[in-house]
């Protein structure tokens, strides 16, 4: 790792002031992604600001809305009894992420800010428009089995790696951000940017801003929610395809559903066509399959990842079946 200085502020204003004073500073909390990237030479901050001294680790499940502090550890959120009951998809997505050791370290805010697992991004020997804008994309025409099938550009086909973010999109969650003139909130869906011509810009977070919390609305749909993750091995692996669904079921009819996918796009990928196709329909396998097929419109697979289209379609149908108890 390149040399860096270190500080551990104990108040949010101090942390933000330090961050704003140095454009090449980075925040560290769990460190499980940042230190990896620093060891690889992909990220080279000259100052680390350790925010573990800030009081941002609280999980507060209230009647109408839940606030999860940015420094809450993944395992603590996943195993919180109220979270499990109120937002099954959130607990399931977290428990399907990484390993216990990493979940004990990694935070909610850090999970949302983790960088892509694209092997070309993480190896400085290759070109990458995200790491080195304008250098080219080695993934396009390269080993693209893990790459995106939606939302890609001619500059970048990397997928967003977070399971948590996919669950949060299905739950309609927001991110509370400090550091600007006033605290602001952005939906998780709008927090992430598509690569377009600027794949180096991944979120709407501005320099000097800090994620404080995730705000999740409590809802009926949230209680009937499921995370389904498909991967190359049964545990401790990133998704090839994942699906988060939250369903409002009345009797045997789906009143509405929110559906988001992971492993298929540069950001958590909401699937409005599938949501529209299933709304108001009886909960049957045939209807789930039709909705899932509708959700694949516009898929643009590369060479080695065509299988993701079929896999994603099947995964949406299965997740809806699981959430509604349909065989």
């Amino acid at each position: 790792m390149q040399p860096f200085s270190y500080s551990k502020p104990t108040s949010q204003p101090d942390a933000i002031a330090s961050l704003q004073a140095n454009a090449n500073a980075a925040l560290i909390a769990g460190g499980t992604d940042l230190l990896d990237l620093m060891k690889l030479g992909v990220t080279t901050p000259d100052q680390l600001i350790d925010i573990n001294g800030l009081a941002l680790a609280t999980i507060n499940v209230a009647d109408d809305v839940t606030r999860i502090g940015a420094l809450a550890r993944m395992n603590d959120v996943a195993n919180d009894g109220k979270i499990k009951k109120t937002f099954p998809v959130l607990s399931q997505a977290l428990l399907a992420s990484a390993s216990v050791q990493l979940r004990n370290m990694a935070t909610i805010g850090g999970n949302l800010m983790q960088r892509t697992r694209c092997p070309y991004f993480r190896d400085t020997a290759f070109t990458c428009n995200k790491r080195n804008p304008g250098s080219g994309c080695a993934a396009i025409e390269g080993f693209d089995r893990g790459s995106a099938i939606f939302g890609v550009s001619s500059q970048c086909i990397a997928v967003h790696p977070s399971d948590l973010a996919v669950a949060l999109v299905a739950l309609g969650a927001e991110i509370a951000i400090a550091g600007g003139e006033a605290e602001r909130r952005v939906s998780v869906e709008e927090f992430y940017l598509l690569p377009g011509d600027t794949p180096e810009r991944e979120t709407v977070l501005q320099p000097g801003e800090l994620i404080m919390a995730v705000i999740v609305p409590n809802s009926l749909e949230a209680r009937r929610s499921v995370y389904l993750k498909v991967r190359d091995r049964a545990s401790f692996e990133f998704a090839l395809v994942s699906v988060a669904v939250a369903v409002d079921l009345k009797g045997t009819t789906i009143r509405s559903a929110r559906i988001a996918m992971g492993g298929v796009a540069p950001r958590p990928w909401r699937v409005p066509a599938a949501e529209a196709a299933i709304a108001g329909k009886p909960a049957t396998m045939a209807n789930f399959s039709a909705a899932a097929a509708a959700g694949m419109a516009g898929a643009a697979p590369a060479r080695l990842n065509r299988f993701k289209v079929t896999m994603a379609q099947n995964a949406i149908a299965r997740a809806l079946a699981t959430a509604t108890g349909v065989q």
Partner: protein
Amino acid sequence: MVNAAQSFNVSLRVNGTSTTLTVDTRVTLLDALRHELGLTGTKKGCDRGQCGACTVLLNGRRIKSCMTLAVMHDNQSVTTVEGLAQNNKLGKLQKAFIKHDAFQCGYCTAGQLMSAAGLLNELRKPTAEQIRELMSGNLCRCGAYPHIVDAILEASS
């Protein structure tokens, strides 16, 4: 631009003994344990948080010591594999690993033991299925997994 390299004093309580180190900011907790304190039971495998050989307990919870910096843990408590035995007597996990032959080459064993110790802090009576899932952060290239599961099951009984 802030200019870089810095050293800090860090007080750690390791296996019940307090100690103060002076470390460069870049030193991981793993390297501090091995190189500064001579506690080489904790192993460096991948150094990327993938293999689990470096697992230790930090304030009672299992973590990967390669993916965190020593400087971040001032006044915190670490348990390494050297801390599992009490008064020169092996702990029950260690005895169960020996009884069930839960290793071949042994390189991953310290990490497996510490991860299992963390697991039993989280869940007193895990099933074999739960053990397989909750130990997935520890790789064993010799493939001793069935024996590792048996050993943890016995230690939890």
